[in-house]
Every structure is written in C-alpha cells, then in structure tokens.
C-alpha cells in the first residue's frame, strides 16, 4: 500500500560561490524509518539538511512534508512544522544550563520571566521515557560529549519533532554511547518518528538504517538498503573507486623505545587527577593504540606529552632519552615529536590562515624558507604544493583560507605538515574522527608507512575498529590509569570493551 | 607707589583710552580653552574687549600643533597683532615669529620674549590677588580651614595658591590644598571640593577651568567662594566673595602703543595690583563686612607699597 512519505525533497539544487553543493537531489523519509545519507566530506549532506531546517535557501527544488508543499524559511518555521535537527557541530550554549538550552526560543509560561522549573520537570519526564538521563540544572560545559548529544536529542523531543535529523551524531561518541543512542533512536522510530541519519561509519549505517541514499559531489549516486549491500560496496559507491578498508601492515622489527612515559600523573582542568601513574614505552616501528572511553585521561596524557600541560612531580616523559617532563611544545617538537591534536580546528590549524601558512605553522622559521630575514615565497610555494600533491589535500589553491576546507582535508593538511618534519615520534589523537572513508584510508596508510620507516607512533582513538586495524599493541585507559596493555594478536574486541568499561579494575 | 587702588585703576583706564583712540591694527587671538571659560581665555577676550578690540579668535586649541597652524595662518593673512595666549605655544612661536618680522606677537603667560624682537610677553603676579583672597577667606573662616582645589602644581595656578595660603595664614587660618593633576577634569575638581566640604572647610577657592566644579560645590553648600583669572560670579553668583581678575588691557595698551610707534616687541610686562592689571573685583551680591573690606583694601595697598610679601 502507498503511504504518503513524511518528508520528500524534490530536485533540490544549491550553489555556493564556486561550489555546486547540491545538484538536483531528491529523496524521501517515511514515518518510523531511519534513512541514512552517506557521502564523502563535502558531498553535500549537511547542506541538504540545513536547507531542510531553514538555515539555507535552496536555489531550486521543493520540500514536501506529510504530502503538503512546505515553506521552511527559518529554524523557527522548521520547528513549528515538527522538524528537529541535531547538528554536526553541537548547537549548545555551554555557559547555560541544560534546561536553559532546552528552553531557548520557547515561550515561557510566565511571560517575561523564565519558567525553568517547568522545563526541568518536562525534561525529566522525557529523560525517563527514553532513558536519556541528564540533570537539567547542570551547566552544559560540564557535560561529556555523550551527554551533550543527549541534550541535543532532548531539545528535539521537547519540541515534539516528528522528523529528526542527526548530522554525524556518532562521530564523537564512544561505542557504548553509540549503542545507547541507537536504542533511543529505535524507540523513537517505534513511536513513528522519521529519522535522517548521517555518518561516516559504515558498520553503524548498516546496523541502524532502514534505507540508505548515497551522495557524491552533490548528486545522488544511488539508493540501497542494508540487506542489499555491504561495507565494501557502500565504500565504493561513496568514493567512486575501490576502497581498502584496512591497511596492509608488513612485519617490522621493533626498535628501541623512543617515547617513554614513567609514573606519569597529570591534573585535569578541574584540578582532579586525570592521569595516574601511567607507564608506557613506544618503540621504533610500532603503533601503540590507546583505547578508552573519552574522558578517561587520554586528552590530558596527549597534552602532557606534547608539552601543553604540566605533569605532576615524580613523572617523567622522554623522547630518545631527552627528558621532556617540563618541556614546552617547542622543545618537544625539537626533540622529534609530531603532534596531531584531537580538535583539529581548535588546536591543529589556524582557520583564518591560508593553506600554505598552516602547512608552515611548525617549521616556518627554518632557514630553507627564507632569503635573509624574509620569507622566500617561491620556495614556500614549491614546498607547499609538493605537500598538497603528495598528501592529496583537496583545495582550490594554496591561498585558500583553511577554514573553508572540509574536515577531512584539513586533517590531511595537518598530517602532511606533521609528517614532513621527519619525526621520531608521532602522537596522533583521533586522527580520522569525522573524516570520510577515502580520506581515512589515506591517513591510515600514511601512519603505517611511517611505522614501517621506524617512527614510534602513539595513536589515541575511541574507534575500536581503527585501533584494531592499525595498532601493533593496544593500551586501554580507564579513569586515568593504563589498565591493560596487549599485543594486537592477542586482543579481542570484547575483552577491550570490558577493560574500557573498567572490568579489569573491578576484577 | 602710594596711590590708592581707585587712582591706579583710573590711571590705567586713561592710558587705555588714549592708546585705543583710533587704532587701525588688526588683531587675532589663539587660545587653549573656550572664549567664555570664565577663566584664563575669557580674561584675555574681556581685556581685548575693554580696549574695543574684537579679534578673530581660534579658541579651544589645546593641541599645540593646531595652535601653531592657526598662528601661522593669521600671520599669512596679514593680521598685524596676534595674541598667542598660552605658555605652551611659545616653542611654536619661536619658529613662526622670525618668519613674519612685520607681525607683532603678544605671548603669555611668559616672563621673557625668547629674545625675539617682534614678541611681547606678559605674566600675572597671581600671588598678589591670591594673598588678598586668602586674607579675606581667612577672616571669614575665623580660624577654620579653607579648601583649595588646584589643577597642576605649576604656573600661575601654583603662584595664586601659594599667595592664597600666605594670606589665609596671615588671618590665622589653615589651608587644605589638593592638586587634582589636571586643568580640565571637572569631575575630579568637584569631587575634591566635596571632600573638602566633608572635612568641614569654611570657604573654597580654586583655579583653572576645572574649578567651575568646585565653585558649584561652594554654591550647593553655602560656602564663600573666591575666584581668580576672570570674575567667577557666573559660577557662584551669590557666594563669590571676590575675584582676582586679569586685566591684561593694562599691558596690552602699552604694547599697542609701542607697536603703533614701530616697536613690535622685545619686552616682557607683568600685571600687578600696582599697575592695575590685577584687579580685585568684589561681588555686590555678597555682603562682606565693612571691616573685612577695609582690611582687604589695606592689604592691597600694603602689597602695592611692598610692605606685604606675597611669595
């Protein structure tokens, strides 16, 4: 029987200056289904969703809701028509409480004054119904990423959304959090909600979706269902060529320990111990993966190794026997460290800088880029062009502002810059978070190549698949401690998952 | 000098009338604050007015470079006499004056002409009127402290205030002196005056254009007020007891006479109580005891006679 779809988007086209972001895109969503949009970075997924939510105006095309032509000119009108959206980058005000974030834009029952107690009660109700436990009184900046995600969903539920868009909701979640999220989403579809889901993680897509639409370069390249397809097929559809999902890793003889952590203890932002007595060696020619649920000290550990955060007394960090316990970032880099930070736009690149400038961020002072005291722009251009070509950074030009590159390309840019300096140790935090499958493949292959050449690599990731695919040894962090170190051959996903949840400690 | 005050003033007035009988000179004035500031600049505008002169005016030019441009502009326009009313313009004047040997520049307050023969200089012995004001204030205060609001501890401000303190001391009163550090910060001058009032002073005085705020506090608290530079009655109409007024016209008249005689400068002149350039103007609206008035007149005569030291 023929149901009217909840949403249908017809022939949507949207251009930005010089970019055709959506090219004649059509697709629909039914009540009670999860419809996934899949595509590389920059394929046009977010743009399409922003059009649906009234943030962008399409150049042409039509949106129908429940069969009727809908005019969605602003987020307010989208919300009024029961469309909810969880944006790729959280749309939360960190200095406001959960209740305040939820109440934003709603009319208060008390007129001029806020009615946060009423809002809090309703939030509690919704939380209980869907198992989304969050304290409504707490400031959002105190919440973990997973909890923030829940707030975003509560915002949509509070507004009684019948169609919910989730743009890369899992990019920053731990496996457990993803599992929890999926339970909630299923509850919602059971209640009749239609969901649009965007993710770069193929196993999630296969697990959750009812239907899948694949975009490439702004165009729809195919519709499919999980039953009809496989990870490999999806990857190929997205990228338009064959994709290698796990890199080949030849055997490499272990060298000396290059990065050594001894009794490393570090305080977190709130003054409590974030890393406790961590001991770890990373040898030349190996990739050590640090697995763990985020918030268990990985970030602090990385920042301390990079020289950004002081270690407690009694700790010791060294690279190739150079003591770096109290070093600045400049000194750790001089000692041979390359650092790929977790938050690429915050710590990794200067958004306003040109691509070439970001490629030079670390070694700009080197004599080879100068003639006398001044930059030699010809040499710099050659150097940067070489890096861009070698690492296939997709950018209109070397002078393009970095912020207008896609996340995947920014990540490639950072990798190019960090690997260029011929490091002895690479510290890579979440190197492929939010990065599409093609780019991730490339980044992985680069890391493996470095390992093969005798670089010691410490990789932090919440993505167990990534760790299992790449690491030679795996360390699990839980509550600031390294609770388990195993060789890749002896590791199983289940065992690691248990360790990440603290099972080892309890035992 | 055993003349009475009245005689001196009358003499001065005659000199003025003679000089100004029929001058064909053209005049310009460049001054740092507003023409009607009831203080430094107004004293010159009024003095020129008493001579029947209506100069072209560039006022409010506290920026020296701007003043220099205006001075040069007037000289280029062929103005005969340019009154350069601000010590701080002296340096610029030293550059400009030699370029215009036909023009006469009258500059103050300054004690020398920088060796330029087309520059006259003028300076007030402000301590003299300060002493008189201080003496009256001291008598009115009857032993209580008198509040003084000063701007920057320099120039005629410091002369006036030190003379005032001596006069008050002669009448047996202490002075409490606060320099705000600014000629223009009215808010601070006002706050300072208020602090004096809170300390229980019996009278107030102050100098510079910022003193207007102090005068308003005197008004609001019914305290006698003493002015200087111009007649400050507009600031505190019922409470201004007396003002030492700069009658530059006395020396201006002499200068103009010399200019008409072909001498364009080279001399520095002072205004004093004796030559009638400093005039104590008493406010009719304030009922001053006859005894006190007499004591004041006596002091004026004593200063003129050189019997009383005001420094």
């Amino acid at each position, binding site marked *: 029987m023929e149901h009217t779809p909840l949403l249908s988007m017809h022939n949507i086209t949207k251009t930005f*200056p010089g970019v055709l972001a959506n090219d004649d895109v059509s697709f629909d969503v039914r009540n009670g289904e999860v419809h996934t949009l899949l595509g590389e970075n920059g394929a046009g997924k977010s743009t399409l969703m922003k059009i649906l939510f009234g943030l962008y105006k399409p150049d042409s095309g039509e949106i129908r809701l429940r069969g009727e032509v809908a005019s969605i000119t602003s987020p307010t009108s989208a919300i009024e028509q029961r469309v909810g959206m969880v944006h790729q980058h959280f749309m939360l005000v960190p200095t406001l409480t959960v209740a305040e974030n939820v109440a934003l834009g709603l009319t208060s029952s008390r007129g001029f004054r806020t009615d946060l107690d009423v809002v809090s009660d309703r939030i509690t109700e919704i939380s209980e119904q869907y198992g989304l436990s969050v304290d409504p009184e707490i400031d959002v900046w105190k919440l973990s990423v997973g909890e923030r995600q829940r707030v975003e969903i509560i915002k949509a539920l509070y507004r009684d959304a019948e169609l919910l868009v989730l743009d890369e909701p899992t990019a920053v979640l731990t496996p457990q959090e993803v599992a929890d999220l999926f339970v909630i989403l299923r509850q919602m579809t059971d209640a009749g909600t239609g969901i649009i889901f965007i993710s770069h993680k193929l196993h999630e897509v296969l697990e959750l979706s009812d239907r899948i639409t694949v975009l490439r370069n702004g165009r729809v390249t195919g519709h499919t269902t999980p039953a009809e397809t496989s990870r490999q097929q999806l990857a190929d559809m997205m990228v338009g060529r064959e994709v290698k999902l796990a890199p080949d890793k030849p055997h490499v003889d272990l060298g000396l320990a290059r990065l050594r952590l001894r009794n490393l203890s570090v305080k977190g932002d709130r003054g409590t111990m974030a890393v406790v007595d961590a001991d770890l060696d990373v040898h030349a020619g190996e990739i050590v993966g640090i697995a763990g649920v985020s918030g268990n000290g990985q970030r602090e550990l990385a920042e301390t190794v990079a020289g*950004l955060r002081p270690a407690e007394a009694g700790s010791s960090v060294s690279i190739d026997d150079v003591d770096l316990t109290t070093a*600045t*970032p*400049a000194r750790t*880099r*001089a000692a041979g460290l390359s*650092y790929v930070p977790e938050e690429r736009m*915050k*710590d*990794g*690149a*200067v*958004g*306003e*800088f040109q691509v070439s*400038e970001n490629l*030079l*961020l*670390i070694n*700009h002072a080197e004599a080879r880029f100068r003639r006398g*005291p*001044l930059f030699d722009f010809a040499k710099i251009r050659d150097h940067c062009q070489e890096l861009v070509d070698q690492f296939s950074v997709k950018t209109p030009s070397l002078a393009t502002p970095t912020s207008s590159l896609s996340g995947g390309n920014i990540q490639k840019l950072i990798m190019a810059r960090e690997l260029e300096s011929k490091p002895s140790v690479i510290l890579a935090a979440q190197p492929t978070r939010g990065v599409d499958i093609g780019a991730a493949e490339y980044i992985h292959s680069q890391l493996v190549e470095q390992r093969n050449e005798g670089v010691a690599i410490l990789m932090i990731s919440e993505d167990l698949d990534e760790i299992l695919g790449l690491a030679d040894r795996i360390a699990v962090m839980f509550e600031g401690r390294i609770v388990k170190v195993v060789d890749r051959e002896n590791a199983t996903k289940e065992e690691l998952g248990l360790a990440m949840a603290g099972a080892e400690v309890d035992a | 000098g055993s003349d009475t005050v009245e005689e001196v003033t009358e003499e001065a007035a005659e000199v003025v009338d003679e000089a100004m009988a029929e001058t064909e000179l053209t005049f310009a004035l460049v001054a*740092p604050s507003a023409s009607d500031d009831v203080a430094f600049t107004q004293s010159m505008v009024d003095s020129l007015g008493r001579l029947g002169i209506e100069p*072209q005016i*560039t006022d*409010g*030019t*506290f*920026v*020296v*470079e*701007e003043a*220099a*441009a*205006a001075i*040069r*502009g*007037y000289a280029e326009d062929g103005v005969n006499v340019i009154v350069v009313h601000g*010590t*701080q313009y*002296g*340096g*610029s004047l*030293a*550059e*400009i004056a030699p370029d215009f040997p036909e023009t006469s520049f009258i500059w103050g*307050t*300054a*004690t020398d002409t920088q060796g330029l023969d087309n520059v006259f200089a003028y300076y007030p012995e402000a301590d003299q009127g300060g002493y008189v004001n201080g003496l009256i204030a001291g008598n009115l205060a009857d032993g209580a402290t008198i509040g003084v609001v000063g*701007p*920057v*501890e*320099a*120039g*005629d401000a410091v*002369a006036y205030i030190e003379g005032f303190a001596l006069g008050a001391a002669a009448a047996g009163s202490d002075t409490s002196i606060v320099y705000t*550090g600014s*000629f*223009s910060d009215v808010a601070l001058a006002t706050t300072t005056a208020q602090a004096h009032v809170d300390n229980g002073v019996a009278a107030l005085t102050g100098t510079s254009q910022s003193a207007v705020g102090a005068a308003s506090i005197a008004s609001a608290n019914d305290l006698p007020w003493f002015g200087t530079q111009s007649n400050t009655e507009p600031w505190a109409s019922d409470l201004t007891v007396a003002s030492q007024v700069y009658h530059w016209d006395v020396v201006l008249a002499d200068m103009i006479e010399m200019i008409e005689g072909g001498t364009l400068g080279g001399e520095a002149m002072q205004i004093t109580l004796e030559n009638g350039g400093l005039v104590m103007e008493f406010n009719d609206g304030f009922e001053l005891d006859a005894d006190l008035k007499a004591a004041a007149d006596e002091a004026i005569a004593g200063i003129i006679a050189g019997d009383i030291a005001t420094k």
Partner: protein
Amino acid sequence: MKRLLGASVPLGAALLAFMFGAIMILFLGEDPIAGLRAIIDGAFGTGDRLAATAVRATPLLLVGAGITIAFRASVINIGGEGQIIAGALLSTAVALWIPGTPKVLLIPLVILAGLVGGGIWGAIPGALKAYASVNEILSTIMLNIVAIQLMNYLLRGPMIDPIEVGTSRIPQTQRLTDNAALPTLIDGSRLHLGVPIAILAAVLVYIMLFRTPLGFRLRAVGHNPDAARAAGISVEKNIVSALGMSGALSGLAGVVLVFGSESLRLVTDGGSAGFTGSAGFNGIVAALFGGLHPLWTIPSSFLFGSLLTGATELQRALQIPNALAIALNGLIVLFVVSSDRVRAWLDRRLDKSMRPGDAA
C-alpha cells in the same frame, strides 16, 4: 570594474558624512561651500599646509602602524597616549643629558630612546596580560594616566627648565639644542625627517607582519592561540612582543612630536592631548580605517591628518568651533564602516550578473 566599485563605496560614505557636516555648518549660520573650501584649503592649500598635514599625519601613522601589530596579534592597545609620552620623556631626557652630541649621533640615539621608552610602556601591559591574565584594555588605559602624571612630575621637578624654577614655574623642559631637531627635508618647509621615517616604519611593519617568521607567529597567535601553542609558538612571548612593538612605534611618535616640533621641548598642560593631539587615540582610528593593514594605514593617516589641519582652518576662517571637525570624524568613521555591507552586497550583485550560466 569590481575593484573600482569597491573603492568608490567608502568614498561615497565619506561624502555622505561631509554632507551631514555641511548641514551642520548651515545650521551654524555659515556657508557650507566656504566651509568645505576652508577644510581643503587648510589641508592642501599651500605647500606649507600640505607639509603641515603630512607632519600632523606622522604620529597617527606611527601609532597606527603599531596598532596593526597589536590588533593582528589580537591584543587591544588603547595605551597609545601613554606610550607616546613614555617615548617622548625618555628621548627628551637623553637629549637633555647629552646636549653636545653631533646630530648624526644624537638623532639615532633619541629615536632609539623613544622606541625603548614606548616599548617598555607597551610591554608592561603585554606582560601583565600574558603572565597575570590582566585585561589589556584596562591596564593600557590606566597606564595612560600613570604616564601623564609621570610627565607632570618630571616636567615640574627633575626635568624642568631651570629658568622656570624661580619664576613662572611653567612645567616644561629647556628648549633642546638645535642639533636635536629632526632635519627638514625641504629648506624653509616644516616637512621633517619624521614623515619618511613614519612611512618607512609602516612599510617595515608590513614586511615584518607578512614576510618574516616573527610576523607569522604574531598573526598565528592572534588568530588561534591554541593552535599556535600546540605548534610550538609561545603565546606569551608573542603577546608581550606585539604590545612592546606597538608601544615602541608610539614611542617613536613621541620622539617625532618633540624633536619635530617647533618648540623643540616637552611642555605639559596637565593632560596628554595637548602634547599628543590625541594621536594615541586617532592612530587607532587610522589603523582600523586602513583595515588594520600597515600600508593602507598610510593614506588613512594622511586623510585624518588632513581633516585635523583642515579643521583648524575651518575654525580660523569661519569661526566654526573645531568640535565640528571631531564630530565629523566620528560620522565619517560610522558611515565608512557601515559601507562594508553595501560593498559586500554590490560584490554579490556583480558576481551574479557576471556569471554567464546563472540565468537558467
């Protein structure tokens, strides 16, 4: 075509502001045409006036060039007035201390002293910000006050002209010896060495900011301190050096104001504006007006310099208070910054109409 239109928009805005000014002149009962003529005549009328305009623009340019450094590094420097004074005080002290030194030696020495004086006065709020988290807006304003009173103190006491002590007690230094005067470029003109020095300084700032590693680091810190830090760039050092350099250039403006002045001495009227002509402040306007680009700050300073000299003539010729000129400056700033939006809109229109396949 597009660039032409882009440039014409701010000019149009300035014209609009001038029309407002004309209306005000009309209300004051004067002839606006004569007013405009007086401004133009006062700023550019004769060689001398052109020179005066250039001289007036010089401190604006120096301060403005410094401001571009600070703002590019994301530090707000409202301390120009104090830094000018600090530079003037130290350089004057040096000149008073070694009066007999030959010009070729003395001029570079006082310039150096000015740079150092202003540099220190800038580096203090820089260090306070970098190492003690003290907001620089507040500390630079407060340091202006300190500098003014320091000047009052020094000119009233240790540095006062000995002649003044017993007499009129005017707070000023001795007139400096003539070998301390900045040489003039054209005989009989007021155009002095300070003008090319300032232009050179602006060019050097441009080169420093965009062609040297130092400038690269300053800009990186300004745009994204987190990324800069992670890349091994010291955020603290760069904040201090940005404010230090900014202050040094203001200090140089102080040197130009003393050693390029006709008075050739430092006088205080108790505040800063009498000496600086508010260059520490107007320099910010010039820099922002020049889009925080050191080279654009050159014409921008000249524009504001000409408005200032023109206003003096306006007042002299028509007896219109120069307060009008200040108000007019404000209006020009407002109109021109608002015109950015108009320009962007025009750009978009042009883009659309010029792209061929767009009609479909």
